[in-house]
């Protein structure tokens, strides 16, 4: 490992880790939403419905993520259908499928949707266990697919290294742990002893690995003093909390999410954990923003999967977000999470690709033409610009995290608007062409190319 003569502050500023309340300019002309003047599509467009198979968790504990994903897809489809459908002719029809059926059943269902239901494209997926199984099937079926989540690096690192038909919209998983690590390095550089509590599955391991590699580079003195690996979807964390407190850390890092995180923080409060250490999370406010109560402490580094929180960009600065949140809230009576934003953006990105392909050749574009337009596509979504890298079909948008804060406008905590942390995504993910690595390409890229700072 080469030692470079660089301080933490210098390197963080090189990475563009910014704490900023106002970093964004005006919205670009091309964005989600269909309000802009429509050009008349070229050529003959059939008027048969465009069928999307949407598979996500509709039952079980994963529904906390699946439900908003489906709702985001639904909202975008409603907007497009209100304008007559895709290219003004083809109304979007969504067929639901339950991801909770299990990986094996899910691959069968994907085949059935394509072969029997004749879906035009496939969308959805929450679990990182499912995208690596479904990706190869979609390729084999030549089924145009946009995964919303299931964000494991493994999908495009290993399972489908040269994708043709599959895309993924939300940020790659490694960005989450890395974002958390950078936010800690930038805000709490004095942290020395870190305890960990992570759900014992791929996501928890990934967050742990990437936090650690960033800490190794930017906070070389950090010791990892205890580990807790509760099963995913647990509700009792008494033992893990006691163990973490007993190891006398000055910070706890956790990637618990959903109901797990709600149970965890309620118990941690009564065990006095928050008063004994700082707490950094990757997904605390990301899953169901309204499920966290105002009893949640302020000033906790509350992650949103390095993707999106409905409160940012705030106000009128980014009208795409304002209208999205308003429409979503009006329709469903709740606030959108990163899955909702991802599915909403993905649906509009599909629309954009179809419109562009039509402009080039006229008529209804075939899948190859749509894929050509999705590769390298850039679009302004509610959360900011999303870019689809042509080489690996992965969506990239700048990572975001922040600190919990109670404000009078909402009955739950949001990200402190004055202390939002954004990081340019290219600075925390392995670039195109970087060799595949273990545990992830991003991990080896950070390990081999980032300098270890001087204290």
């Amino acid at each position, binding site marked *: 490992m080469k030692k470079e003569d660089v301080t933490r502050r210098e390197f963080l500023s090189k990475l563009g880790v910014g704490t900023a309340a106002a970093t964004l300019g005006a919205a670009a002309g091309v964005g989600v939403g269909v309000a802009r003047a429509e050009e008349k599509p070229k050529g003959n467009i059939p008027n048969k419905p465009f069928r999307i198979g949407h598979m996500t968790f509709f*039952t*079980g*504990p994963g*529904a*906390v993520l*699946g*439900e908003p994903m489906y709702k985001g897809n639904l909202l975008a489809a409603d907007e497009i259908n209100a304008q007559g459908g895709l290219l003004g002719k083809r109304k979007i029809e969504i067929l639901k499928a339950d991801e909770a059926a299990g990986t094996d059943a899910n691959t069968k269902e994907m085949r059935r949707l394509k072969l029997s239901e004749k879906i035009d494209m496939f969308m959805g997926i929450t679990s990182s266990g499912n995208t690596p199984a479904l990706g190869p099937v979609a390729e084999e079926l030549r089924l145009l697919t946009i995964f919303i989540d299931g964000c494991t690096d493994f999908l495009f690192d290993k399972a489908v290294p040269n994708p043709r038909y599959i895309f993924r919209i939300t940020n790659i998983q490694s960005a989450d742990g890395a974002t958390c690590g950078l936010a800690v390095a930038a805000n709490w550089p004095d942290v020395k002893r870190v305890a960990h509590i992570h759900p*014992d599955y791929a996501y928890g391991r990934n967050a742990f690995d990437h936090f650690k590699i960033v800490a190794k580079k930017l906070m070389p003195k950090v010791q990892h003093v*205890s*580990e*807790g*690996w*509760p*099963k995913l*979807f*647990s*509700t*009792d964390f*008494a*033992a*893990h909390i*006691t*163990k973490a*407190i*007993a190891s006398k850390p000055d910070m706890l890092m956790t990637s618990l999410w*959903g*109901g*797990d995180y*709600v*149970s965890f923080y*309620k*118990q941690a*409060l*009564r*065990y*006095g954990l928050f008063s004994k250490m700082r707490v950094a999370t990757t997904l605390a406010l990301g899953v*169901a923003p*309204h*499920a966290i*109560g105002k*009893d949640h402490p302020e000033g906790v580094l509350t992650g949103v999967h390095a993707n999106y929180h409905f409160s940012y960009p705030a106000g009128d600065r980014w009208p795409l977000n304002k209208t999205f949140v308003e429409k979503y809230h009006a329709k469903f009576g709740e606030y959108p999470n990163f899955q909702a934003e991802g599915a909403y953006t993905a649906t509009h990105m599909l629309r954009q690709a179809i419109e562009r392909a039509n402009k080039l050749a006229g008529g209804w574009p075939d899948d190859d033409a749509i894929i050509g337009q999705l590769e390298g596509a850039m679009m302004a979504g509610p959360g900011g610009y999303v870019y689809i890298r042509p080489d690996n079909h992965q969506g990239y948008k700048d990572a975001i995290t922040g600190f919990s804060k109670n404000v009078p406008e909402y009955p739950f905590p949001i990200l402190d608007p004055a202390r939002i942390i954004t990081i340019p995504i290219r600075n925390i993910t392995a670039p195109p062409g970087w060799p595949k690595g273990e545990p992830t390409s991003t991990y080896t890229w950070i390990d081999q190319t980032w300098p270890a700072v001087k204290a």
Partner: protein
Amino acid sequence: MDFLAIHILNALLYASVLFLIAGGLSLIYGVMRIVNLAHGNLYALGAFVTAGAVGHFFPETQSRLVFLLLPAGAIATAAAGAILEPTLLRPFYKRAEEYQLLVTFGLLMILEDLMRFLWGPYPLSASSVFEQLGSFTVGSAIYPTYNLLVIAVGGVAALFLWGFIYKTKFGVMLRATSQNMRTASALGVNVNRVYIQAFTIGCFMAGLGGAIVVPSQSAVLGMGVDALVLAFIVVVIGGLGSLEGALVGALIVGVFREIGVTVFAEIELAVLYLIAVIVLLVRPAGLFGRAT
């Protein structure tokens, strides 16, 4: 040393809730000889009913009246049990075990979807109950006072059940039915009534477990399946159909889980299965099980 005390209290807390779940499961098996796979979601139902009631009537309150809502989950679950046993389960007692497993597993899934339908996919909390009692200190460590209540409820439930089964006339009928249903019936015991009562008590315990635990955790989909698996570990260790076994099994699981989390973080779940394997090797019917 302070933390040792906390670890012991944590273990008792875990054991207490597990006993409520596994005790009900074991009681039902002991009397009716059915393995009720739906039991896990009856526990979850207790949690959802209490959390739903607290959230509905006392969303943000400091009122002590909220404690009156705690038993709501147990009562609702007992009522569900009193309806389910005669309508859904009774027709299957004379069938092969596979049918009972299919029916109760189906019920497990129906209950899960019912809860999803009634309360939505997001976690529900009833933490105002948990918060009201605050925390107390043990040396340099802090412990939630509410957890003592949970431990006490588990203990009282065990005592109450013991008294009920070994010291009352109903208990005699229950044990008689459990040992030999036909003879008990011939001697004039109304077996159907015993069944419905035993099933209702078992459900009440599961519901009570859910209701009492939800203020310190949250009601989430999937919690029932998780609890069912743990309850099976308890009854495998203690012996299916034995209440003493459920109590001892729950204590063993509580203690070893605490040790597992603290010392063998990487394999905390495997520790429990290992114990079950060891017990099965040494005593295949469980510590208190009757070999048949």
